[in-house]
Structures are given as C-alpha cells and as structure tokens.
C-alpha cells in the first residue's frame, strides 16, 4: 500500500489547532476506545449485525482521518463499504494497522 501510516501535515495541524498537550490526551483516548471498536467489528461480523459493523468501521474511519492515519482510515472505509460480510482477515489487518498507528501516534505526540 502506498499510503503513509500517518500524514505528518494532518497530525501537525491537529497539534497546532488543539494544542500538543491535548493531543497526547486525545491519542490515549483513541488507544482506549479503538480496541473496543475492533471487538465490536468482530462481534458484529459473527452475528451478521450490519448496522453495528458499519457503525464501528465508520467510527474508526472518522478517528483515523482526524489523526491523519490515512491507511487506517482507508481500510476502515473499505470495511464500512463491504459491511458485515467482509472477510475476517480484513478485520485482522485493520487490527494490526491500528496497533502500529497507536504506537506511531504515541511517539509523534510525545516528540514535541
């Protein structure tokens, strides 16, 4: 995939607009909530609950965009579009990307 993990411009703009200290808190909030969204995706897929699946994918997409996590956002967008019939591997890939994103975001947020 050609997309960068984190779009530096988006992340820096977020820090400039909201304040670098606040972004540290925001990243932690994301780290707390995002794994629950992955769990929601897995559970919704297992129960063929289309609405819940789309809602969780949608939330991950929206947060990904906010942090400049473009690859994560794109994967979540794809899942949202596919719905609960998406392959379980696609959810696993998203979970792996999320772990990498969280690690990258924590590093970037604490750098300033």
């Amino acid at each position, binding site marked *: 995939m050609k997309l960068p993990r984190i779009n530096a411009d988006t992340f820096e703009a977020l820090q400039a607009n909201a304040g670098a200290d606040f972004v540290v808190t*925001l990243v932690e*909030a994301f780290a707390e909530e995002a794994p629950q969204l992955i769990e929601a995706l897995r559970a919704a897929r297992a129960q063929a609950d289309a609405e819940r699946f789309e809602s969780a994918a949608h939330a991950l997409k929206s947060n990904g965009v906010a942090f400049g996590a473009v690859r994560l956002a794109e994967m979540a967008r794809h899942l949202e579009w596919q719905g609960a019939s998406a392959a379980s591997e696609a959810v696993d890939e998203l979970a792996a990307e999320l772990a990498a994103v969280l690690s990258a975001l924590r590093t970037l947020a604490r750098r300033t």
Partner: protein
Amino acid sequence: MSVQTTALVFGHVELRLAERQLLVDGEPVALGSRGFDLLKALVAKRDRVVGKDELLDEVWPGLVVEENNLQVQISGLRRVLGARAIATVAGIGYRFTLTPGAAEAPAAAPPSAAAVLAPARVLVADDNKVNRLLLCRSLELMGHQVSSAVDGREALDMLKRQPFELLLLDLAMPELDGFGLLQARAADPVLREVAVIVTSALGGVAPVARCIELGADDFLHKPVDPWLLRARVESSLARKQQRDQQSQVLRRLMPNGPAQASRLADACVLVVGLNLPELPEPMQTQALLSDWSTLMLDAVDGRGGEVAQFRGDGLTALFGELPAALGGAQDMAELLASFNDERRAAGQAALAIGVGIARGEVVVATVATAQRAAYACLGEPVLRAEQLAAACLLAGQQMLLD
C-alpha cells in the same frame, strides 16, 4: 509600565490616558470628561462586549443615572471616532472595535457580527470519545463553556435540566440517535430555542435534508475542520442571538405570551425610511446599511422605544408617549447629521431620511411558522406614519407628525 502613561493608538485615533486627551488624525478633539471616561472603559475592555450597567458604573460611579445618558455619550463618541468604532450589541452593551496599531498599518477587516458575540453554553453530543474530546477542545479554545453527553438520551436530559445556547449533535449514537433528539426538540418549545449544528460523517444529501427539515440550523461533515467549525458556530450563535432579541421584544410587547396578540390603545408609531442617493456597490451598500441601522436602532433604544419591524433600509418603532417618539426622531436626525459629515469628509454623498410619526390604536400580533417568527404591527397609525415617512422623502423634509 503604568497604563496611565500609555498612549494607545488605533489607526487614526490616539488616546493619551495621562493627559486625558483624544487625538483624531493627529488633531486634539474636545471630549467631555464623561465621554473620555466612557472611551477609556471601552478601550480597556475592548476584548469583549461591555454591559450597559457596567459602563454606567464606570462613568457615573455611585450615581443612579438613566441609560439615556450613556446613549448620548456613545453617540458623541461615534461622532468623533466614526460610527463603526463602537458596535452596539442590542440588549447587552457596547464594544470598541478599532484595531490597535499605527495608522500606517493595513486596515483590518471590519469586525463581523460574530466577533462581538459573548461566550455561549454549548453541549456536545457524540458517542465517539475522540470526536467528543476534539469538539469540546475546539469550542473551549473559542471561549465557550462546554459540556458533553455520550449519547442522545443523556444529551436530551441535560438540555431539559440546564440552559444551553448551542448543541453540536452527532447523528449515529446509541440510546437515542441524532434524528430522535431533533424530533424531541421539535416538539418542545423550550428546546427549540437551542441552536443545533449537526456533525456527522454520514454521506449524501438525504441526512442533511432530513436534519434541516427537523429544524437543525447547520450541518458539518466529519472530520470537522476547526476553521469551518468556528465560522458555523459563530454564525449559528449570531442567528440565535437575533432570534432571542426578537422574542425578548415580543415578550415585552406582549407580556401575555407571544401567542396572544394585543391591542395598544394609544401607541406612537414612528416609521423611518432611508433614501439612498444612488445604489452603491453591494459590499458598500451592506456596510452603509449596517452603519445606518446601528444609528437608527440606537436612537429608538435610547428613547425606550421598541422596534416592531426592521427592513434594513427602514424600520417601524413603537413608543409609549409622544415626547419619546419625537426625541427618537430628533436623535435620528442628529446621528444622521454626524454620519453625513463623515461621509462628506470621505467624498461620499449625504443620505436623507424621512420620519413619520402617528398616534392611535395599533394591534401587535405574532406571525410564527416553524422556521421563522416576526411580529406584525397593524392599524391606521402604522399606515399614516408610513405615508408620512414616504412624503418626507419626496418633499425633502426630515420629519412629519400626524
């Protein structure tokens, strides 16, 4: 450095606090002691709107003074500083709007109506923690008091328990979604007073259309751009402030409630119309009408009148007694004369107004739909005052009394 030794410069205006002296374009301007104190207070608090009571305390400390005195001093300051130097925030107070800096500095954009808005109480309803925190942070940085709710049910409970001016509402939420909350709001006259901006990542036109149908003021797509958020929040709050002012006047005119029309047995109706010598460019027209309206509304306000109808280039106001209406007309003429002096100095044509005053029985009634409310002011005196105002303009006179 003590503020007393400082000279403050705002473009062509220089305020020398130690000498108690005001210079406009480098020339000293005679300003009464009260006028100077008022200007000093407005300049010292120029980061916000200063309430009328606060200004009365500053300028006439320890004295009980009628608000009309403040109005006269404000008009005097506008005469020397230019009408736009002091903005009126109806029902709240005044704000000094000139930008600090030397005259050589490039002129700043005129302050928007939003720039003079007071901080608002805002509720953010979003189940997604990151979005919620980010919206709250952006609003706090704008100076608002922010609370948050994690779903529609909690938001509805909070709206019913405490007053908010604005709600930022997500659509997809557990318990009660954004559409459900908008429906509940539409059915509740108190909640309808709260302005709503929907923030959602739902694509397509359909959700936007549905939200607007349900009474939302605006719609922002997620992720929300902070600059767009600021602009939309300010514009929603400005619209809400206008609506609130209108309902306040309605309540004063009709204490039995807006649904009940009332008959005013002996009201003085004042109608003022503006005659533009020629139609300037749209942006100039807008600035001109805003300045002119500020002066006319001040004249009505200063004499305790109520603006019943406002058209931008004309207005109808109600007064309880004839001397008040005549005083209002006189103030309008004086304010216009100073305004015309400024315009002539800038090489612009002078403006003419026509004022008609008639007295008698009028009926005021609310005309309300789900989207807009206005009040109608009907009766013989209204028609006569309108005809007199029009006749003044034709005859080149300033005021005709029935």
